[in-house]
């Protein structure tokens, strides 16, 4: 077994050699006993295992905590009521500023590209209905009278 093999096995099985497959364990123990670097690497992995186990050691559960959950369940909905409040950060302001600039620019470009609405006929059409339609109706009516 090389140091590289040892590292790979430590990452696969963890730092506790007792959990390793028998053949690998024997090879690893031999390497650790004869190579200082291997011993150091194995010791670090074992220490990491210890710290990880300590990190997930159960935390106390007091009556207040239990009461909150049972009380929430007893409300009938069983949904988490509390939503943590949020506050904006400078990044949010930057996002908002950037969005405003984008919308202003889009408005400016739209103003350049779209056809002008500066026409009296168009305003009249908007206010009193489509002038072209009115004209067509009158024409049809006149034709009917003539016939």
């Amino acid at each position: 077994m090389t140091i590289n093999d040892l590292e790979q096995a430590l990452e696969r099985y963890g730092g506790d050699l007792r959990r390793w497959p028998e053949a690998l364990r024997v090879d690893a123990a031999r390497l650790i006993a004869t190579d200082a670097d291997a011993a150091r690497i194995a010791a670090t992995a074992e220490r990491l295992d210890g710290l990880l186990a300590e990190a997930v050691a159960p935390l106390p559960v007091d009556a207040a905590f239990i009461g909150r959950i049972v009380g929430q369940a007893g409300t009938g909905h069983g949904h988490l009521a509390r939503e943590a409040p949020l506050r904006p950060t400078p990044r949010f302001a930057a996002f908002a500023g950037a969005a405003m600039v984008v919308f202003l620019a889009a408005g400016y470009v739209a103003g350049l590209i779209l056809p002008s609405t500066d026409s009296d006929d168009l305003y009249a059409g908007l206010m009193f209905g489509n002038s072209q339609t009115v004209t067509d109706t009158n024409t049809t009516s006149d034709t009917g009278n003539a016939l």
Partner: protein
Amino acid sequence: MGASARLMTLAPAHPVRNMVCGATTPVHAAASGQRLTTTAIAEADDEALAIMVANGDGRALGEIVRRHGGRLRALALRFAGGAPEADDIVQDTFLSFWRTARRWQPGGPPLGAYLTRIAVNRAIDADRRRRIRRFVGLETVTEVAHDEIGTERRHAGKAALAAVARDIGTLPARQRAAILLAADGERSKSDIAAAMGLSEGAVEQLLVRARRTLRLRLAEREG
């Protein structure tokens, strides 16, 4: 099949009559809708408690929280990195179980594993929401009214543990969940895979990457 009928089929053939007058085991009592004493609830197994929760018994939910809450709280704390977020995850986990207790099947995964799976999913969802909020520039206002803060401070006194906890917090969500589930050494890869809804191979890859990252960082600090 209703929850009561489901459990009646799994109840032992010759149960011991010791929990409530006229009842047999807590499973039978719970399945038949009888109200157990507080002592009986404390002595009831997870299966009986689960059926009581399915029948809407808040005391049984409290007992389940007492039994499994500490482990889930530690898991959530290391995953989320903050006590308020961790408590939200744990509360949401138990409230989700309260709403969906009938889905838990006796004879399937143990209740602890079932709750762990809910908690892991909740934690990953919460992490995703937090990352999106952080991306758009919103952050949660931290509340400082939790007794876990004292625990955190005690832990913070242990520099190595605090440093590893920080390192865990920098791992991608799935690596973080996998390494935390493996941390106590009590779960096999298949248990972790079941809790995370992944294949064993995927879990192994996650564990390998997480262990490599954490070991190299620990070696850098202590080397």
